């Protein structure tokens, strides 16, 4: 099943950390998407190539999809997991530094997935250990495996991940999944339109970085005007937990709601993605529409993470 993968790239991924989409070239991103295709629909599971491997899931912040899909991925490939899903039950609650936690855990496992509320925590963890570390989300910075899943889902639906017009809707200020995908989508050569309330616009530093790379995203608050020309719409939740000021959250929580009526102005083939969970931003009546891909996207999490874990652990079926 592996001959299709470039051996030089397979080597490059062995033992590698997955910390930020900025760390990957366009070629490497496409390679991961190719590798993931080999793991779709139960691919790679029969041989149980990760038998005996242990993945530590250190979740200092709540997670459902990321943690469960990593667990499902390694278990389907024959491996197992240890870890915690709440910082309150870890030694962090006793004041242990992240560095020390990682140094201890590295003796128990073969790879580490970490989610942490502080930005940069995954990179710090990676520096503390010789094991591959995967960033499962660090504050509002990055969520690179989600980006691989998003791009994989886009390629499934549109046949390509470049030359598309991709819209981003919702919380572009704090949304790490959006930040990571915006950076990668720009690097892959897509047109970007950013739709958000003024208070939740993309941070200036990321916008500046895009402009330096020659990408000029359109920024607007008008969803209906933006919809007509989009190939993909990436919707994000307004994340209450990121707001320091509850009044600010109240002002923007209902800023957008995607329903059938709103989508009348969209192209017939619009693909709608969402990293989930959703709250109010997509009406459940949209779920049945052809372009609603968010549950498919969540399921792809296992496929892509199976591929990533196999590559990092250097054990391909």
């Amino acid at each position, binding site marked *: 099943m592996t001959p299709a993968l470039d051996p030089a790239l397979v080597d490059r991924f062995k033992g590698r950390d997955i910390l*930020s989409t*900025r760390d990957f070239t366009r070629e490497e991103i496409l390679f991961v998407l190719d590798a993931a295709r080999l793991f779709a629909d139960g691919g790679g599971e029969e041989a149980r190539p990760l038998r005996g491997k242990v993945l530590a899931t250190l979740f200092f912040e709540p997670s459902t999809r990321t943690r469960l899909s990593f667990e499902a991925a390694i278990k389907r490939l024959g491996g197992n997991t240890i870890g915690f899903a709440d910082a309150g039950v870890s030694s962090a609650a006793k004041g242990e*530094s*992240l*560095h020390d936690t990682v140094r201890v855990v590295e003796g128990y496992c073969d790879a580490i997935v970490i989610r*942490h*509320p*502080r*930005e*940069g*925590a995954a*990179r*710090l963890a990676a520096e503390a250990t010789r094991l591959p570390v995967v960033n499962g989300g*660090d*504050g*509002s*910075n*990055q969520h690179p495996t989600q980006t691989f899943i998003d791009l994989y889902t886009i390629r499934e639906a549109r046949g390509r991940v470049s030359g598309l017009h991709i819209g981003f809707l919702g919380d572009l200020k704090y949304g790490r999944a959006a930040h990571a995908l915006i950076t990668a989508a720009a690097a892959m050569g897509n047109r970007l339109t950013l739709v958000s309330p003024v208070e939740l616009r993309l*941070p200036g*530093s*990321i916008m*500046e*970085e895009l402009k*330096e790379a020659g990408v000029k995203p359109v920024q607007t608050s008008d969803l209906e005007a933006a919809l007509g020309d989009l190939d993909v719409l990436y919707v994000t939740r307004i994340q209450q937990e990121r707001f320091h000021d509850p009044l600010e959250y109240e002002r923007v929580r209902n800023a957008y709601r995607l329903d059938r009526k709103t989508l009348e102005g969209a192209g017939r083939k619009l693909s709608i993605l969402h990293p989930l969970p959703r709250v109010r931003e997509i009406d459940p009546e949209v779920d049945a529409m052809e372009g609603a891909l968010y549950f498919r996207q969540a399921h792809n999490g296992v496929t892509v993470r199976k591929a990533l874990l196999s590559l990092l652990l250097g054990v391909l079926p």
Partner: protein
Amino acid sequence: MSAARRRPPSRKGAGPRPARARTAPAAPAPQAEAPSIRVAKLRNGTVIDHLAAGTALRCLAILGLAPEAVVTVGLNLPSRSMKRKDLLKMENRRLTAAELARIALLAPRGTVCTIEDYRVVNKTRLELPTVIDGVVHCPNPSCITHHDPVVPRVRVDSNDPLRLRCHYCERRIRLDEVEFVPASSVPAIK
């Protein structure tokens, strides 16, 4: 004085130039740079030239000089290449690599001359390493460097224009956001 005014700008204060003023005249000199640098000659010490106008006092602040240090400051001096520049002359002072990295962050085009017995014995252009450890705090309050015991590290994405990024949280650091780690705790530069 007229002879001194015709001296080339490369002398950086070395040599027998009579002292008359600490700073430049208000109007730009139409011809050469030399006429504006009317400062005392330096026997031993360091001259930092080609600082961007307006940065000299900040450079002094981050160097944390001793109260008794003898320093000449030139502000907004006319410059052929920069239009306006600042300049620092520090008597009996050598800069460490860590101090040079700090200065380079503020003055990526700066030049440093080491003076011994009125002669320029070494002249270098300030250069930033690609990674700077323990010199600049990340301005992002949610960055792990503010919550775990870790030496702050910034990456230099570009020298000209100067672009810095926190190695950990990946946030771009604007120059007006740069907050230096106290000079006393500066570790080695990679």
